[in-house]
């Protein structure tokens, strides 16, 4: 038993130190590309930390959204930045870029900001150590009401029943981010004309697999780890893969059909909320007998919308404008 707990400590200590080290290097190493790769590695290690903290649902979300999508987003943004540089730059651009990537505020400012941050770290550490060692969370309240929630995975029950209102607003945040990006009117990049047979094959093989996994996660979410966000982001990753392989949405679908897909999750959520309001006098109050069906409908539409939004976030520019310019 003693050896076992020592091993646990070693593993957790290694993960903790690894996280701090990766974060430190990602934030302070001179080259930006290296920083991004380190950040992706950070996300992957974070997944292991979530697993160690007994939160497989979070691990799934982190791996699907955090590692998969954020990594691809960062890499592609970095590449676009460099393209801007290359377009305007002459011979010295490489040197300039490296300088701008490392640029920080004046050294005096480093000390000025390090002091309060250190104080904050000490204060926060003290505050956390002062907490009573017994968690006073809501696990019993959730467990007592789980039967009436329509699902048996407590995390899904919280997300789609007990605190479904948060989830509604959160899907609104996703949609808002996309509308905000579209209103920036970024020119689409005209690159990656070449088609790679191996990449094509990979995309052809992985896309159906991603579809299957997404459906599986959606289905399994009711009683084990998984759910709309995980499923949606895996499906969204399929979209990202297709975009990377050079595939584009046909223009006929890029207008209203795409927009409807983007909003169907949020709209269904609102519609259900209003229906429940009319029926039971309370926003989003699902009758326990039909709760599992309602949650399934909500999750399915949410998965579709989340996937479409994430893929569109990755694309950046509005797909119905991209061919015209």
């Amino acid at each position: 038993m003693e050896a076992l707990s020592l091993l646990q400590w070693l593993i957790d200590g290694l993960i903790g130190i690894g996280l701090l080290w990766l974060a430190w290097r990602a934030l302070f190493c001179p080259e930006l590309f290296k920083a991004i790769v380190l950040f992706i590695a950070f996300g992957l290690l974070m997944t292991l930390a979530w697993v160690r903290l007994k939160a497989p649902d979070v691990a799934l979300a982190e791996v699907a959204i955090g590692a998969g999508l954020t990594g691809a987003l960062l890499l592609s943004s970095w590449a676009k930045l460099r393209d801007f540089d290359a377009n305007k730059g002459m011979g010295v651009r490489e040197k300039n870029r490296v300088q701008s990537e490392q640029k920080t505020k004046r050294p005096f400012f480093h000390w000025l900001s390090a002091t309060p941050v250190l104080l904050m770290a000490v204060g926060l550490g003290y505050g956390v150590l002062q907490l009573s060692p017994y968690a006073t969370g809501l696990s019993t309240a959730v467990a007592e009401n789980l039967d009436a929630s329509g699902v048996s995975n407590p995390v899904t029950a919280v997300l789609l029943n007990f605190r479904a209102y948060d989830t509604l607003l959160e899907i609104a945040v996703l949609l808002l981010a996309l509308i905000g990006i579209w209103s920036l009117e970024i020119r689409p990049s005209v690159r990656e004309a070449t088609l790679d047979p191996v990449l094509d094959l990979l995309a052809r093989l992985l896309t159906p697999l991603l579809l299957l996994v997404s459906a599986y996660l959606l289905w399994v979410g009711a009683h084990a780890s998984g759910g709309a966000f995980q499923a949606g982001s895996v499906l969204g990753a399929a979209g990202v893969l297709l975009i990377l392989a050079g595939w584009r949405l046909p223009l006929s679908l890029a207008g209203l059909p795409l927009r409807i897909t983007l909003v169907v999750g949020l709209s269904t959520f609102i519609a259900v909320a209003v229906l429940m309001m009319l029926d039971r006098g309370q926003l989003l109050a699902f009758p326990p007998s039909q709760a599992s069906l309602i949650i399934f409908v909500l999750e399915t539409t949410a998965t579709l919308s989340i996937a479409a939004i994430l893929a569109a976030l990755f694309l950046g520019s509005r797909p119905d404008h991209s061919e015209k310019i």
Partner: protein
Amino acid sequence: METFYLVLVLFLLLNLAAGMWRVLLGPTAADRMMAAQLFGTTAVAVLLLLGQVEGRSALHDVAFVFALLSAVTAVAFVRRAWSEQEKKHDSK
């Protein structure tokens, strides 16, 4: 048996830490990305082992998604981020 699995997990994590040197060393962008790939494969193994220790099949799903999505990141790297001529090479 549980102890053995955990020893194995610890070993793989140390292995991973060693692999991180490559990210720092480079010298080409591909080397850095490759090390992140190493992360992918090793982490899948770690997740499977931890799943065995904790008796949770949910971790298999995590490992599965992990394997799928680290591929997407790598494709993003090859297609988007790596487009300039490499000037840095391994020193002889």
